[in-house]
């Protein structure tokens, strides 16, 4: 059902050429846009809320009673208090990550045979934000939040540690855990650019 067609090349007639019709039409367009409202989001004063699926800075879900069944299975071998990170040191994120050395995970063996995660560093400056690590996490621990304002003055402050990831996930879940999986939620901001969308 694919067809082939030749594009036709429009010509500028002499009448149009003498009367500057082409210029006038173009300038009419710019004038029309001059009258329209601006589409700008004044950033520090108004902000676009990233959608639920936005892949921002990483975070660690904590043990808060909402764990998936798989966590219950593995939990037995781990030493995780309530309110601590769910990470079970399965190194799946490390395996799934295309970039080697991005993760730095250490777990120790406690005397009672259970494991405990003591170190979980991520160097965000090497991260592609591709989300493969979050898809690999079997206990819904490593997630990506909607936080993007991470600019800083030092390389060292772009490296995530396990406790700030805990903080972030708590902050993130408090705001957006129960949110439906919509394409975006801030219609008032987006409508500046989009105009009014009629939702089905």
């Amino acid at each position, binding site marked *: 059902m694919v067809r*082939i067609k030749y*594009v036709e090349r429009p010509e500028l007639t002499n009448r149009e050429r003498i009367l500057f019709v082409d210029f006038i039409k173009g300038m009419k367009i*710019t004038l029309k846009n001059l009258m329209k409202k601006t589409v700008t989001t004044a950033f520090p004063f108004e902000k676009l809320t990233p959608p639920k699926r936005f892949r921002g800075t990483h975070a660690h879900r904590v043990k808060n009673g909402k764990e998936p069944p798989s966590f219950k299975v593995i939990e037995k071998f781990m030493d995780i208090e309530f309110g601590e990170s769910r990470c079970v040191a399965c190194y799946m994120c490390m395996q799934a990550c295309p970039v080697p050395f991005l993760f730095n995970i250490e777990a120790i063996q406690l005397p009672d045979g259970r494991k405990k995660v003591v170190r979980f560093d991520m160097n965000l400056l090497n991260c592609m934000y591709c989300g493969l690590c979050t898809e690999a996490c079997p206990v819904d621990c490593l997630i990506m939040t909607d936080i993007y304002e991470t600019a800083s003055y030092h390389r060292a402050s772009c*490296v995530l540690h396990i406790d700030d990831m805990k903080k972030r996930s708590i902050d993130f879940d408090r705001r957006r855990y129960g949110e439906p999986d919509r394409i975006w939620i801030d219609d008032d901001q987006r409508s500046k650019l989009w105009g009014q969308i009629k939702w089905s």
Partner: protein
Amino acid sequence: MHLWAETKELELLEEKFSEIKLEKAENFTSIIVKKENLLDILTFLKDELDYRMFIDLTAVDYYPKNPRFMCVYILFSPEKRKRIAVKCWADNDSIPSVIYLWKGAKWAEREVYDLFGIRFEGHKNLVRMFLWEGYKHHPLRKDFPKEGIQEVYLPSLNLRPDEIPAHNYTPYHTYVPSMEELEKTQKSRLEKKSQIVLNWGPLHPGTHGTIWFLFDMEGETIKNCEIILGQLHRGIEKLAEDLTYTQIIPYTDRMDYISALCSQVAYVNTVERLLGVEPPQKAKWIRTMMCELQRINSHLLWLGTYALDLGALTIFLYAFREREKIMDIIEGIAGIRLNSTYIRIGGVSKDLPEGAIDVIKHFLNDFPEKLDEYETILTKNRIWLRRNLNIGIVTEDQVYQYGLTGVVARSAGVPYDIRMIQPTDAYDKVDFEIPLGKVGDCYDRYLIRIEEMRQSIKIIKQCVAEIENLKDDRYISTENPYVLPTLNEVFSSIESMVKDFNLRIYGEQAPEGEIYMSGENPRGELGFYIVSRGDGKPYRIKIRSGAFYNLQIFPELIKGRTVADAVALLGSLDPVVGETDR
């Protein structure tokens, strides 16, 4: 559908040249020839059997075999719409050059020389393509480490005394060239004959990234031109050699960052064909829809920058205004605006969120009138006409000689569109038109891209209608042993968790073999040549970049024109450096 040469041709070849060896597989058909009669066979293929379009040339390093390098030529026959591959072992690291058969082989041979160190006898000015003169190694050889050799001490300049930047930070670094070496590189490319040699680029507002042009100019007329690539050569092909097939997907975004989704789809289709995975219907339609959205997105960026280069500053911002809308759609569906790693082997990573269809419909409704606005300002503007008409005319012969694809080929009237020749996903179910040009100048390319945007809208409309029918259909076929399970499956069932672990750790164990498949990128044919030796990682991936071959014709077209025309011509060829350099 597969595009490889038929048996009777191969038999014809066999009886003519007795010493060749045929390799006929379902995905790849190649003839292995001896080095001494390579040229005769290629000439025969080109003249008698009219495989006259040069698609790609690459090499594979079978270290520690001896001879270690195998060169692979991929040719295409425009009439029969068939491909054929010719393989040849490079005994003692050298092989005859084919630039007298196809001009397009010039850069490809330089690239192979640069990355593998194979010498091409008879190639004039065989210098490095991506790296600089005086670079000691040939990176794509198997015995060269991926990280390179970290020989110089080059620490970060602003470290606080107490600061440890990161656990993976090392003060040692690979060798960074000096200005003198770069000047040596420049000298080796072009020697001054006329008044001045103008360095246009590499860090120049007008050169679409970091292409480095050398203009040998007489007044403002360009007498001779050379292009230095490699200012964005990041070694993606080397990286891909020790990643699993899934892990390569994010890197395909970073190649052609303006049309990330198209690159993903082209790559994933190739891998699926190799693994024998069949995605579900809904995924196919979603892929097609996203591809076309991305095509509009890419063409809009082209329109904006092209108009900016030709001085129409406002069009640039109008085009970006529309781009923002598509960015919103992609961000809402995939999660990231630009390099959205959305396509997965066996489907797509997530289903469409609620409201996505409404937003896309809204976009489809009000985009055409915006397109008309651009056309009103530009298409019949006398200045626009004078800047575009009869600039950089591409002929049909040049298309075959240089292996031009995409809009550049279609502007010369060659109906070469992968969506038509080898339809993947849902392209065989939608109906659309492929615009062709009659003259082949910049103005034709402009009109064709504008028309392609309209056609994309047409396609997306059909996709939206189809996806609404398949609302509660599966979007990824996880029952396939090669396809990663979704998170919910992992959470609930232990089998999928084990499968997930295996696929993540060992990768998709692809069957042994080779494959070449391509997709229609906004810049041309984006082909992937994958050699698999049966383990979870590809043995070699060659990325056939459309922009690389399209850009190759620039020096020939610009001779005798001015710098102002160079801007227009470069804009209408529309290269993306990430793809040319990989």
